[in-house]
């Protein structure tokens, strides 16, 4: 067993443990944190396969953005944990059956279909850049699937924003471009007010001394 295999089993153990805890953790926030851990270990496994671009993107997109928003939502929900776990044991047999079925399907697909799994992946030379290879592939051979996926995502973004848009009356908002373009004369009016002359002998200033400059 060389060092690489050791690292693989180390990461795989953590990944399986974290995945298990995502399902079994009592509190949803803890479950989300275990999901973060499993993403991170998954990225480590991809790094072992020399897919550094995919590994780093997994960390950047899923851990750095998606899971933060996920956590954001989970924290804000007022969850009743007891209620959520109420049907756990009665639902377990069905869920276990579905899970087992999925596992069997996966094993069938990966072994029976004549594919070879296992065996070390091909090592690449020192100058090999996974990022460049990936870029060349998605912008040449797979350009249409890639573009279609991008358009689907764009539609999803616009739809999500459209759902949240609602016109409400009575909301206040500022227009910063109007705010910064304001001039002094729009806001301040200089008024010339001659001093009132008080009764004689009270020492009021001579007329014009308090006059503000225009």
């Amino acid at each position, binding site marked *: 067993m060389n060092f690489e295999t050791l690292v693989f089993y180390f990461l795989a153990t953590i990944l399986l443990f974290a995945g298990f805890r995502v399902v079994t953790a009592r*509190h949803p*926030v*803890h479950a989300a*944190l275990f999901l*973060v851990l499993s993403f991170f270990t998954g990225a480590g496994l991809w790094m072992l396969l020399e897919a*550094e*671009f995919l590994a*780093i*993107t997994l*960390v*950047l997109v899923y*851990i*750095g*953005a998606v899971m*933060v*928003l996920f*956590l*954001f939502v989970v*924290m*804000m929900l007022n969850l009743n944990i007891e209620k959520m776990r109420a049907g756990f044991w009665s639902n377990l047999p069905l869920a276990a059956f579905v899970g087992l079925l999925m596992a069997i399907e996966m094993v069938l697909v990966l072994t029976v279909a004549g594919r070879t799994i296992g065996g070390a992946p091909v090592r690449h030379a020192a100058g090999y*850049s996974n*990022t460049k290879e990936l870029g060349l592939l998605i912008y040449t051979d797979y350009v249409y699937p890639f573009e279609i996926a991008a358009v689907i995502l764009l539609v999803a973004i616009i739809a999500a924003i459209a759902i949240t848009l609602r016109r409400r009356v009575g909301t206040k908002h500022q227009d*910063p471009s109007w705010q910064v373009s304001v001039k002094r004369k729009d806001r301040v009016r200089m008024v010339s007010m001659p001093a009132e002359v008080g009764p004689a002998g009270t020492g009021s200033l001579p007329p014009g001394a308090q006059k503000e400059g225009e």
Partner: protein
Amino acid sequence: MTDTITLLQGFFGFTWPVVSNLAKIFAIIVPLLLGVAYLTYAERKIIGYMQVRIGPNRVGPKGWLQPIADGLKLFMKEIVIPAGASKGVFLLAPLLALGPALAAWAVVPFGPELMVANIDASLLYVMAITSMGVYGIVLAGWASNSKYSFLGGMRAAAQIVSYELAMGFALVGVLLAAQSLNLVEIVNGQQGGMFNWYWLPLFPLFIVYLIAGVAETNRAPFDVVEGESEIVGFHVEYSGFAFAIFFLAEYANMILVATMTSLLFLGGWNPPIEVAPFTWIPGFFWLFAKACFILFLFLWFRATFPRYRYDQIMRLGWKVFIPVTLVWLMVVAAAMQTPYGYLFH
């Protein structure tokens, strides 16, 4: 130098890779922590003078020992865990804040050969690692079981995710210009004086990166996360050394952003004018000077600008910065295809 290395190699035998890497890590962490300590001193002094005050001047000559005294004080204090806090997450959060702030330094080059690891996708690595820093803040806010710290954590999550996008787009511009994700190659692409640095062709992206960097580190004027006049912040329940670790993480992140800005837009270790007296000065000094300048800007911003309101922060990030970066990316990418493409390299 090489003789000493072979001698050490012989002495440590097969443990040499572990020993040498540990030594490199220490060689970065120790100056970094010292830098953090004296950045807090510089901050208090500089803002003090900007506000016509003197700043700390009692501990040691001219107050030089003030950061050490502050650190000692925090170290001696008790760490209080609030009742009802989620204890494990509460203690994990400071580490999650500090870890990324230190781990990102693994790929930061201080010179053409001077770094812990020279990896191909180092720019992406820095982005990915720094994007994890937000967990410390969000979890600290949640685990404290306090409404005020929770609000701080929520604000942090929204703000950091928003500005990360603008920051990422600004970095796409840099990698378009340098045609590499490797930080050493990005700096080497900027050789030949200050007009070859990327701040000039990528000027809008430079400004966006700088301001988004201030927002990412939750510094004033983007410090709604710990806006002390309204909510105090995500670390309101932390005391003693647990609080000090958040403090360390924030300042280590500031130094990281300043160094990254110098590397990506200000030519890194290249001197501003490539003629004799400037080229004699070692490259590390130039990088240090540039990073110090950016850090000075951070402090200057804090002394100058009033805090943004939450909706203003969101507007600036989504409606100003992201369109600006997208337009400039199109300009750069289109110009690369014309005979004038050399202007952007």
